[in-house]
């Protein structure tokens, strides 16, 4: 289909949903009544969160930010974590591409020291009109987004399942679609090897599986699911494993991929690789082995391969890996080793 035809079809379909609408009076009425409603809402949410919020102390720093310290209790009434919340102003805008180092610098700026680094932090960026946070404990630098956290006035609302020390297991939105657990089990039972490849992993107290999943469209989707012993969290993220252990030995894993926060690693080899201290590592795997892009955080070492370019509105792959797939794998392995070496 020609691009012009495609564009026309899309534009027509978008024009078709257009409708005379008038939300003005409804919206304005809500705005006028907002203060009253908000008071009720906050009270209700305060009740809901009473189980996990034990104290909430507000400290104002130089009028620039508001820092709130919240102790979290589990159902046994034990303090299991501390969260500090920073409300950013427009001069401290964060986005999901910020690196851990940048965030540390940001924290230093707020606190004038590095002491805060060992605390549990959630940075709330309100400039996007939506709460977005980050757990800054040394073993985690995850972004929290979307519906996982709600902020309303002085109340931080965590989903019940995230109460206590479960911050690191907050799910991060992936671009790729996982098959759910039921589907996975069904596929394993059916032994559908063409569409589903499972590699078991066992290293120290980490065990899990990596999956290759060929979607119906023929795209290769990849997922990793891991379990940490005594923490039966089946969908635990691979990246959290990175963050939780200083050195991890991973073997026989073909691909790890995360896209939403640009962390992840792609590796395709039977060799064992020791991975350490990866912060940002974007991989993309697009339909064939000959088109793989790798972007590594500049703080580590900059690599860009497999560039795709847009030419006349079309997506053209202008760079490919060497035709010899074996060579490609070797190069990629070397790249990984080189990157990791810089962190040892």
């Amino acid at each position, binding site marked *: *289909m020609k691009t012009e035809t*495609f564009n026309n079809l*899309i534009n027509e*379909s978008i024009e078709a949903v257009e409708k005379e609408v008038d939300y003005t009076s409804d919206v304005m009425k*809500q*705005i006028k009544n907002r203060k009253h409603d908000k008071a009720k809402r906050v009270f209700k949410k305060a009740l809901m969160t009473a189980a996990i919020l034990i104290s909430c102390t507000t400290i104002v720093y130089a009028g620039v930010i508001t820092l709130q310290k919240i102790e979290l209790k589990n159902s046994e009434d034990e303090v299991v974590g501390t969260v500090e919340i920073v409300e950013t102003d427009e001069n401290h805008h964060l986005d999901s591409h910020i690196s851990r180092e940048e965030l540390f610098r940001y924290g230093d700026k707020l606190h004038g020291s590095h002491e805060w680094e060992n605390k549990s932090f959630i940075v709330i960026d309100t400039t996007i009109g939506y709460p977005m946070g980050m757990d800054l404990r040394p073993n985690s630098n995850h972004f929290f987004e979307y519906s996982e956290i709600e902020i309303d006035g002085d109340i931080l609302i965590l989903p019940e399942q995230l109460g206590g020390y479960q911050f690191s297991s907050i799910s991060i939105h992936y*671009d790729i679609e996982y098959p759910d657990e039921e589907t996975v089990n069904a596929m394993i039972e059916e032994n559908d090897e063409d569409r589903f490849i499972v590699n078991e992993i066992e290293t120290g107290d980490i065990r899990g599986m990596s999956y290759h999943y060929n979607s119906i469209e023929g795209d290769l989707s990849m997922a990793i699911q891991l379990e940490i012993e005594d923490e039966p969290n089946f969908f635990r993220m691979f990246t959290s494993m990175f963050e939780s252990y200083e050195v991890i030995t991973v073997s026989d894993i073909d691909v790890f991929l995360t896209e939403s926060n640009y962390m992840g690693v792609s590796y395709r080899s039977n060799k064992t690789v020791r991975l350490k201290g990866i912060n940002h590592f974007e991989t993309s795997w697009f339909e064939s082995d000959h088109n793989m892009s790798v972007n590594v955080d500049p703080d580590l070492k900059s690599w860009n391969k497999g560039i795709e370019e847009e030419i006349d509105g079309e997506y053209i792959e202008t760079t490919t890996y060497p035709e010899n797939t074996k060579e490609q794998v070797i190069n990629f392995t070397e790249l990984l080793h080189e990157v990791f070496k810089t962190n040892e």
Partner: protein
Amino acid sequence: MSHHEIESSINAVKRGNSDAFENIVEMYQRPLYKYIRYIVYNQWDTDDILQDVFIKIYTNIHQYRSNSNFEGWLYKIAYNHTMSVLRKKAKEPFVLVERLPDVAYIDEYKIEMSSEMTTTLSQLNPDERAILFLRVHEELPYKDISKIMKNSESLLRKKYERAKKKFVKIYKEVLQDENRNIQ
């Protein structure tokens, strides 16, 4: 309304004049309605989401930096909130029942759009519809879409190409099915 008038209304709201927000609602309700409805593909959810989006815009308007890209900022809030609502809905146990459209809704939609297109679009996911809207209809560069959808430009290119391929494939299949039925 000119850019200057929009900025004046924004500044007035920032200063506490909530009535000035009415201008902003009037100005942007139609494009935002179109955008949200295209993503959620559902009239009722659109109504709720759009009103919430305007409340979010109002409560966060002091965060908007004057003379920056206001439309982009609106699209970003609308996208975030829409996706959040959809994610929450996906977790609801009775979502399928709730989402079943009634006959009136189907009729209304069919009047506006061909059945082939309705079927095709319904098989794209909300993210794919969002990127088609922003890229094709709004003609935004990937750089701007990247700010709205919080994805890298390279990832968005891929998403767009995948959405396009998927759309074309489904659309052709639907047309073929229609032809078979006619014969």
